[in-house]
């Protein structure tokens, strides 16, 4: 059985799943950048005590699941979401959903994801894919970061749905229920709400490790890494920063570019010149993240590695923090239409 579904590639998995799932119920106007912005996807945090793959834990976007949830709430689309204890039940419910004609989103771990290249298969559990049918033992999969649709056997799918470790998906599946057509008004309100929430996340969450202050904190920490960890481990930490920043499909501060694209598209709903100016600021921030990654690469490849080089690396992040702070402060001055 194969549901009518058109595979669409995206820069980031959850944006892609959100956009495609909404499209599957006839809401075709939400592009990837709009989903990212309405879902207040832009974020930063560095959690010094938490270790991921033996390195420091960074995040460049909000908690997995929130982009989809917030976008659906903004558009008044009811969502069905379910986690499972039992693997059998998880498959039965999935089959029943497909039988009932629902294209389904699933959170999975990538370690056992057979169509991914081995080099990218770490124990990372916040990947999202779409299942749009079943032919015999094989489930038809649309993975938003891949160019083409693919498929997984029932066993392979069960394995990735029940990956363990941090953010274990527990078989989680979700889909939007049938919905009314979306109005311009709703999108405009969603944009406003998404931006306001993002301003709060980046500027106003208390504590030193989240948002703008988190970027600044990381920049300062990096300057001390060489002495504290030794050049080799410090290099590995920087490689981890770059890998988190680069996550598959987002390429180099990619979230900043997506946010810049969002602000451009937002102008169609809120005609305000300031938005395109602020969009340029986010482009600049994305460029700076990429420059920082190049600097980091010099260090972890061993081409450079003096204390000066670490200072420069830290300074990049301090500069980024300033640029993004300014961008969000300008965003908070916008007079929204609705």
């Amino acid at each position, binding site marked *: 059985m194969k549901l009518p579904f058109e595979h669409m*590639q*995206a*820069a980031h998995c959850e944006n892609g799943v959100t956009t495609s799932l909404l499209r599957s119920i006839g809401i075709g106007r939400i592009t990837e*950048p709009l989903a990212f912005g309405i879902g207040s996807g832009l974020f930063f945090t560095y959690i010094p005590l938490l*270790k991921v*793959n*033996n390195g420091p834990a960074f995040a460049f976007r909000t908690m997995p699941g929130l982009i989809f949830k917030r976008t659906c709430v903004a558009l008044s689309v009811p969502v069905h979401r379910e986690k499972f204890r039992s693997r059998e039940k998880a498959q039965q419910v999935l089959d029943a959903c497909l039988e009932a004609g629902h294209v389904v989103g699933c959170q999975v771990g990538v*370690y056992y994801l057979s*169509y*991914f*290249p*081995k*080099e*990218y298969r*770490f*124990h990372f559990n916040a990947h999202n894919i779409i299942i749009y049918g079943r032919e015999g033992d094989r489930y038809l999969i649309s993975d938003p*970061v*891949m*160019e*083409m649709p693919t498929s997984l056997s029932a066993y392979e799918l069960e394995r990735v749905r029940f990956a*363990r*470790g*941090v953010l*274990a998906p527990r078989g989680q599946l979700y889909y939007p229920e049938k919905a009314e057509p979306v109005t311009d008004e709703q999108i405009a309100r969603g944009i406003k709400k998404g931006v306001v929430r993002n301003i709060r996340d980046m500027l106003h969450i208390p504590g030193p490790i989240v948002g703008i202050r988190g970027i600044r904190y990381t920049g300062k920490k990096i300057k001390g890494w060489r002495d504290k960890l030794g050049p080799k481990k410090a*290099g*590995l930490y920087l*490689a*981890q920063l*770059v*890998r988190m920043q*680069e996550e*598959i*499909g987002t*390429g*180099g501060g*990619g979230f900043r*570019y*997506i946010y*810049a*694209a969002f602000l*451009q*598209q937002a102008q169609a709903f809120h005609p305000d010149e300031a938005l395109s100016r602020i*969009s*340029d600021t986010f*482009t600049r921030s*994305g*460029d700076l993240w*990429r420059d920082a*990654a*190049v600097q*980091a*690469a010099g260090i*972890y*490849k061993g081409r450079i590695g003096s204390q000066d080089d670490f200072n420069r690396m830290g300074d990049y992040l301090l500069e980024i923090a300033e640029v993004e702070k300014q961008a969000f402060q300008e965003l908070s001055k916008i007079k929204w239409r609705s």
Partner: protein
Amino acid sequence: MKKEDIPQDTGAFGKITKEVQYATDAAGNYTTELSKGWEVKNSANDAAWQDIEERVRIARERVLKNEVSPLLYFMELKLMDIKVLAGYTGFWSWQIRRHMKPSVFKNLSDRRLQRYAEVFEVRVDDLKNILPQ
């Protein structure tokens, strides 16, 4: 970033699929373009893998010196840490830490070893007797 500046450095992922990248066109408007990958990103991934190989090598040496049980070697080989291993085996983290001691490991029942063996995708004998090259 401008569209024409999108890097096209094929890496491990680029061999399988291209990735979508947001960038600006000549008029400054955002559009998407496919990228085969970026050298900076490829080398970050290489660095992570070199680290893993190093960890596996060190774990192997420590097992051979009988400082630690073979579980550490297999755990590193599967890119796991104690938390992930606890998730897959159903043991508590403190139990796994205990099982990492050679003196405790040699008295583990086959039933318990079987739980590890399944997760590591080896036979119980492999856990006990040999250390694969």
